[in-house]
């Protein structure tokens, strides 16, 4: 890339700040040391402090319940009608914890090691170690709350294994792990609502953040049922608003998942970490056609017993799979990666599925001329374990598959294809989960930390609950204690009024365009640009093209979108979507810039220019051993890149190999 182009697209700034992790003690003592050194707030003073938490998924729900219990005043916001519906509920597979209940040599250190390696050495050692350290306590906490994890006849908890690891450390509740964990957090939250420490704000969307004297001091929220903009001031703000995978339009995320809260904060100074790291999940139900609104994940636990294959010959692709004899099938993961087989990490499984389909060996209906599907076959498992045992293990997933596709997976193999699933990027945070904007904390999928360039299965639930139950309640005190004596911000202060006016102006601007295209049509177009050029495989040329296309589309959006209905007085779902898509338009461009700058392949980020002779991702640790933290400089202005150098004192960097 020429320097000139760089300057057009971005400039480089100072390296990132100190992360606040105590580096003067061994890694295993970091968290204890940080907790000990953090200032405390006396219980009697806590009720004089107010914390806003946006999002009630695992991260936000757990944080709100925990901070409420501690005695703070908490305001919890979410866009659904009930806190129990946050998207964490959709997680099927499971949650990891280093309990070593299986006596298979699991340990905190091994979970730490697997996570750093799985993330392709692009995660921060200190954060990941802490995650592994508190993981065991998460399971204890959830069991105490009544989460009905799967159990064995002896009454003890059952475990299974997940992609990318060789121990059984995943706890699960049939295919409803996320739901059951979230209901645990939700019930803890409702208990605090009854106790009067937490106030819930259902159907309220955060549309702006209030920054005063360099600190986050509140939010502007829109009451979605009345359209009214409301002001909430507080002593600290926590964003736990989930991932932004919906920038791709089709993804496994819920319809409402969005980037608005973190993007508004980014525009007010919070840095955005590693925006291009997107996880593509290998086992989703393939797209059925152009009326499709979202993609559905089939839990990756299916890869424990299902075998993935495509026909060896392209001519066989249209045949009934049952008529293709064993010798004409290519069990490509088992062939290429004999020691991990079907359990290779997600990025590898996804890319290989794409390769098979691009070679013309995909199966199922053609979308844009290519059959995008591979088989996930349970015939062997049914023969080995019996149909009843397969059904006991995966029955609800099989039912779900049949409901969506109309095919019976006991009779014929499932068809799967990769889909956008999880975003490893998010707002940059330090060891305390504080962003570079004082008083703004970010938890769960909304922050960038812990997973590096790729997330291993069953680790996001762990991270959300770790952040919410154990990290934030300990670190936020340090900030609150120090700002205890700050004057309360008045609702009529200029900073608050300005934030409210900005939010109003943005809504007015959206309503005023009055063009002739619907919001969804823009969202779909943006999504296809992102998938084509910033999806599973990226090239410099493609990314530059995408940046141009996104800029054009954004201009077209602001010139030609039409938002029907009223902005005030009644529910307006088109307006809600319009605000979110407008933010995706800006975020999409930053994702492409970030992907362009990172001239290496790592985890979910695969640059075609950077691969080994065997077609595997090729990292360049000499040049890219850093987190990209992006600073906003204004609409249409090149952002500033701050690099946070990654230091590995406890793990040796290796080329990742699953062969």
């Amino acid at each position, binding site marked *: 890339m020429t320097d000139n182009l760089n300057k057009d697209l971005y400039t480089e700034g100072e390296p990132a700040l100190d992360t606040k992790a105590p580096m003067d003690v061994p890694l295993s003592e970091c968290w204890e040391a940080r907790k000990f050194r953090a200032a405390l707030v006396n219980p009697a003073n806590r009720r004089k402090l107010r914390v806003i938490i946006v999002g009630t998924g695992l991260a936000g729900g757990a944080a709100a319940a925990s901070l409420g219990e501690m005695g703070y005043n908490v305001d919890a916001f979410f866009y659904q*009608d*009930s806190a129990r519906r946050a*998207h964490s509920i959709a997680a099927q597979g499971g949650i990891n914890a280093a309990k070593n209940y299986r006596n298979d040599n699991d340990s905190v250190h091994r979970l730490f090691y697997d996570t750093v390696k799985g993330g392709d050495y692009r995660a921060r050692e200190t954060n990941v170690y802490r995650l592994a350290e508190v993981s065991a306590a998460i399971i204890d906490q959830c069991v*105490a*709350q009544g989460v009905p994890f799967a*159990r064995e006849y002896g009454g003890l908890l059952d475990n299974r294994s997940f992609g990318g690891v060789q121990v059984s450390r995943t706890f699960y509740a049939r295919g409803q792990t996320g739901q059951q964990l979230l209901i645990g957090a939700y019930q803890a939250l409702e208990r605090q609502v009854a106790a009067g420490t937490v106030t819930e704000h259902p159907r309220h969307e955060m549309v702006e953040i209030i920054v005063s004297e360099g600190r986050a001091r509140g939010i502007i929220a829109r009451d979605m*049922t009345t359209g009214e903009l409301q002001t909430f001031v507080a002593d600290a703000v926590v964003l736990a608003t989930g991932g932004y995978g919906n920038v791709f339009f089709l993804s496994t995320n819920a319809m409402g998942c969005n980037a608005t809260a973190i993007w508004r904060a980014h525009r007010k100074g919070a840095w955005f970490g590693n925006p291009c790291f997107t996880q593509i999940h290998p086992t989703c139900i393939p797209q059925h056609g152009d009326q499709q609104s979202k993609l559905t994940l089939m839990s990756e636990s299916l890869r424990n017993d299902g075998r993935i294959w495509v026909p060896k010959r392209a001519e066989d692709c249209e045949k009934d799979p049952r008529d293709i004899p064993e010798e004409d099938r290519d069990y490509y993961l088992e062939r290429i990666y004999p020691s991990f087989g079907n359990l290779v990490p997600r990025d590898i499984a996804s890319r290989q599925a794409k390769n098979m389909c691009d070679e013309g060996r995909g199966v199922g209906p053609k979308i844009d001329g290519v059959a995008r599907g591979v088989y996930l076959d349970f015939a062997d498992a049914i023969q080995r374990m019996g149909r009843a045992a397969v059904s006991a293990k995966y029955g609800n997933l099989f039912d779900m598959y049949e409901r*969506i596709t109309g095919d019976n997976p006991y009779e014929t193999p499932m068809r799967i294809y990769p889909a956008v699933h999880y975003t490893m990027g998010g707002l940059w945070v330090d060891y305390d989960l504080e962003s570079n904007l004082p008083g703004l904390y970010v938890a769960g999928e909304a922050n960038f930390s812990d997973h590096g360039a790729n997330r291993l299965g069953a680790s996001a639930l762990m991270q959300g609950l770790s952040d919410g139950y154990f990290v934030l309640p300990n670190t936020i005190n340090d900030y609150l204690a120090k700002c205890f004596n700050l004057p309360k911000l008045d609702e009529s202060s200029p900073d608050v009024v300005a934030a409210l006016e900005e939010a109003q102006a943005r809504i007015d601007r959206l309503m005023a365009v009055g063009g002739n295209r619907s919001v*969804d049509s823009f969202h779909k177009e943006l999504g296809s640009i992102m998938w084509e050029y910033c999806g599973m495989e990226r090239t410099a040329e493609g990314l530059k093209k995408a940046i141009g296309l996104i800029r054009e589309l954004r201009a077209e959006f602001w010139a030609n979108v039409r938002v029907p209905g009223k902005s005030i007085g009644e*529910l307006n779902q088109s307006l809600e979507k319009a605000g979110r898509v407008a933010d995706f338009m800006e975020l999409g461009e930053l994702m492409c810039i970030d992907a362009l700058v990172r001239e290496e392949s790592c985890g979910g980020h695969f640059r075609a220019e950077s691969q080994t002779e065997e077609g595997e991702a090729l990292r360049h640790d000499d040049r890219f051993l850093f987190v990209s933290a992006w600073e906003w400089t204004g609409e249409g202005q090149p952002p500033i890149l701050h690099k946070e150098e990654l230091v590995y004192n406890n793990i040796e960097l290796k080329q990742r190999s699953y062969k």
Partner: protein
Amino acid sequence: MNLTLKIWRQSGPQDPGAMHEYQIRGISEESSFLEMLDVLNEELFARGEEPIAFDSDCREGICGQCGIVINGVAHGPEVTTTCQLHMRTFNDGDVITIEPWRAQAFPIIKDLVVNRSALDRIIQAGGYISVNTGAAPDAHATPVPKGDADRAFEAAACIGCGACVAACPNASAMLFTSAKVTHLQLLPQGKPENLRRVVAMLNQLDEEGFGSCTNIGECAAVCPKEIPLDVISTLNRQLGKAAFMGV
């Protein structure tokens, strides 16, 4: 497929509302019911009319946010959530009526969207285990027999969609409430507060304006998570015990 849709439209809580008829063509059998409504909404947009408001989020049958009455049945003709109902269930040329959940405790917000916060308030009354963060014993300290764990799980599968209320002629929330009580009382951790929980949750249920349960069973028939009707007898037994003990 081509269909005739009769849909309840109501601009806000004060508006009296009415049924409107729409024709729609070219719907794929592979589409979900809500994707069919998405297509209709794009057409309404193109005609300069306001899209129909309806609730959904996960579209995977798990969040409980979707929920409409289709041809008189909550969530429609199959035992599933509205988002997981697929158009292959219907025939070309069908006439389909679409209405919101109707219950006094669920005020209409707009079109097909209702306010179900009353269900949250029933949980607030006691649908939890009182444990603070950070001091739980090791998970293996208290084994739970697999049978109890499985049955608790079955009850815990409730997604809080409110179909049971919409289907009940009395608009009772007994199936929902009993599911929670059953889930928590079967686990050793939930037992200590059990009787207090039952009484508090039932009091709240009355206060919210839900009707009383007269054992009709429509609730379990429409429940997308197949919560069994006998959770209601589990709750009733606990209630009897609570009365006996003077809780």
